C-alpha cells in the first residue's frame, strides 16, 4: 500500500513536470510563430490560457510529492530542544492540520467545479469551459488527500514509508 501511495505521487510529479515541459515548448512555438508572422504564421491561439490552466494542473500534481518528501519550508531552529513527546505531538498536529485544510480546499474546489459547469463559463480566446481546468486539477488534488492522510499515518507510526525513501532520508 505504501508503495502504491508513493509511486502514484511520484508518477503525478512526473506528469506535472511533463505538463511543464509541454507548456515551455508551446510557448517557444508561440514565440516562433509570432516572429514569423510575416510568413503567414502566428502565435499559438490561447497560449496564455493554456499556460494558466497547465501551471495549475502541474502545481496540484507536485504538492503531494513535495509533502511526502518533506520539502515544505519549516523553521526547525528550536526543534532539537523540544522534548521527544512534544515533538511527536507537534508532528502529528502539523500533519493532521495539513490533511484537514487540504480536504477543506478540495471540498470547496469540487463545488466550484460544479458551479462553473452549471454556469457554462468559458475562457476568453479558446472558449474552453472553465470547469475543465478545475476538473483536471481535481484529480491530483483529490489524490493529494490520500498522500496527506498517508503521511499522517506515517507520523503516527501506523505505517512506514517504502524502504528506498527511508534509506534516502537517513543519508540526508
Amino acid at each position: 500500500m505504501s508503495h502504491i501511495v508513493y509511486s502514484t505521487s511520484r508518477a503525478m510529479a512526473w506528469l506535472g513536470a511533463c505538463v511543464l515541459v509541454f507548456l515551455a515548448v508551446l510557448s517557444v512555438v508561440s514565440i516562433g510563430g509570432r516572429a514569423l508572422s510575416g510568413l503567414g504564421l502566428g502565435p499559438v491561439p490561447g497560449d496564455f490560457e493554456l499556460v494558466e490552466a497547465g501551471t495549475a494542473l502541474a502545481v496540484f500534481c507536485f504538492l503531494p510529492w513535495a509533502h511526502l518528501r518533506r520539502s515544505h519550508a519549516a523553521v526547525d531552529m528550536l526543534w532539537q530542544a523540544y522534548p521527544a513527546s512534544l515533538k511527536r505531538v507537534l508532528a502529528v498536529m502539523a500533519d493532521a492540520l495539513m490533511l484537514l485544510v487540504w480536504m477543506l480546499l478540495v471540498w470547496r474546489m469540487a463545488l466550484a467545479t460544479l458551479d462553473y459547469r452549471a454556469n457554462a463559463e468559458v475562457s476568453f480566446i479558446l472558449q474552453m469551459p472553465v470547469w475543465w481546468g478545475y476538473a483536471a486539477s481535481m484529480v491530483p488534488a483529490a489524490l493529494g488527500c490520500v498522500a496527506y492522510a498517508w503521511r499522517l499515518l506515517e507520523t503516527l507510526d501506523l505505517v512506514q514509508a517504502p524502504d528506498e525513501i527511508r534509506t534516502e532520508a537517513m543519508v540526508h
Partner: protein
Amino acid sequence: MDPLVLAGLSFPVLMVLIFLRVPIGLSMLVVGLFGSWQVYGSVAPLLNQLKNLAYSQFSTHSLSIVPLFLLMGQFATLGGMSKALFKAAEALLGHYRGGVGMAAIGACAGFGSICGSSLATAATMGQVALPELRRAGYSGALSTGLLAAGGTLGILIPPSIVLVIYAILAEQNIAKLFAAAFVPGLLAAGGYMGVIALYVRLVPGSANQVPALPWRERGAALANVWPVLLIFVVVIGGIYSGIFTPTEGAAVGAVATGAMAWRRGGLTRAGLGAAFEATASATGMVFMIVLGAAAYNSFLALSQMPQELAGWVGRQGFGPYTVLWAILLFYLVFGCVMDSLSMILLTIPIFFPMVSGLDFGLGPEEMAIWFGVLVLIVVEVGLITPPVGMNLFVIQSMTPEISIRQSYLGVLPFVASDLLRVVLLVAVPGITLFVLRL
C-alpha cells in the same frame, strides 16, 4: 474583536506556529483563514472564497514563470555546465592568490545567470567546486563559507525567483527589476572575490595556489561555456527588450537548457527523473507558501492593517532612511530563521505601502525597483546567516568532516561584504538604477 487588534495578534500566533515547525505556508494559511472568518463574522463568505483560492493562485499567469525557472535550473544542472564554468573560471583566475576560491565564485555567478534559485546553485556548484577547493588546500571554513555565499548569486544575479514574487506583489515590471539587479549582482560576486583575496592573505595556510595555464588552454576552457552565455543573453535580453514576456523567457530558458542537457548526454532516465522530482518538490514548496500568503494577506487586507500601519508610520514623521533601515534590519534578523520567499510574501504587502509614502528623491517606479533590489539582497543574506542558513546546510551536508561551527565562522566575512554592499546601494541608488536611466 476589532479587525486591527485581530491582525496585530495574528502575527505572534503565526510566529508561534512557525516555531513549532508547522510548515510556514500551512501556518499562514490556517491563521489567514481563521482571521478572515473572524473579520467576516460568519463562515459563509469564507467558504465562498475557498472555492477559488487555490486554483486562482496556482493559475496566475505571472506565477507560471516560477516552475519554468525551477525546471530551467534543474536542466542547467543536468547539462553539466557547472564543471565547464568552474574550469573556465579556474583557467582565468586559478593562479592568483585565492584564485581557486575566486574561480568558484565566478562559476557560481555564471551558473546564477541561468538559474534563479540559490539552493540549486549552492548544491550544483558545491558538488563540483568543493572537492577542487579541498584539493587546492583550502581550509574547511573558507571552502564552505565561500560556496554558501556563492550560492546566493543564483538569486542575486537574474533570473531570480524572489524578484519575480516581489514584482507580482509590488506590481512592478519584472524585466526592469531583472535589469536593475544585474549590476548589484556583479558587485556581490566582486565583493566575495575581494573577501577571498583578503582572507588568504590574513589567514596563512588557508589556501594554496595552482600553477598558471598557458593562454591556449585558457581560451579553450572559456570557449566551452558559450552555451551559458548564449542562454543568458537570449533569455534576459529577450525579456528586457520585450521580444517576449518574462514567462515566455522562462519557457525559452527551460527549452534551451533542456536541449543543452540533451546534447551533453545529461538527459538519462535517472537524471531526468531526479530533475523532475526536484522541480516538483521545489515548486510544491513555493506554491504552498504562495497559497498560505494569499490567505494571510487577504485577511490582513480585510482588516485594513497595512494601510493603517502605513498611515501611522507616515504621521510619526520618521525620516525615510530610518524607516528603510528599520525594514532592512527586520529582514536581516528574521532572515536568520525564516526562508526568503516566506518573508517576502508575508511582509511586502505591509512594507511596500509604508515605503511608497516616503520621499527618497526618486520617482515611484525607481523607488519600487531600488527597494526591491535592496530587499532581495537582505533576504538572501538570510540564506547564509547562522543558525538557519539553508545554503550552509546544503554545502555542509556534502562534507560531514567539516563541522557546522567551522562553516558558521567561514561565512561571516562574506556576510560582512553583503552588509557593506547594502550600505553602498542605499547610499547610492544610482548604482542600481543607472541601467534603467540609459
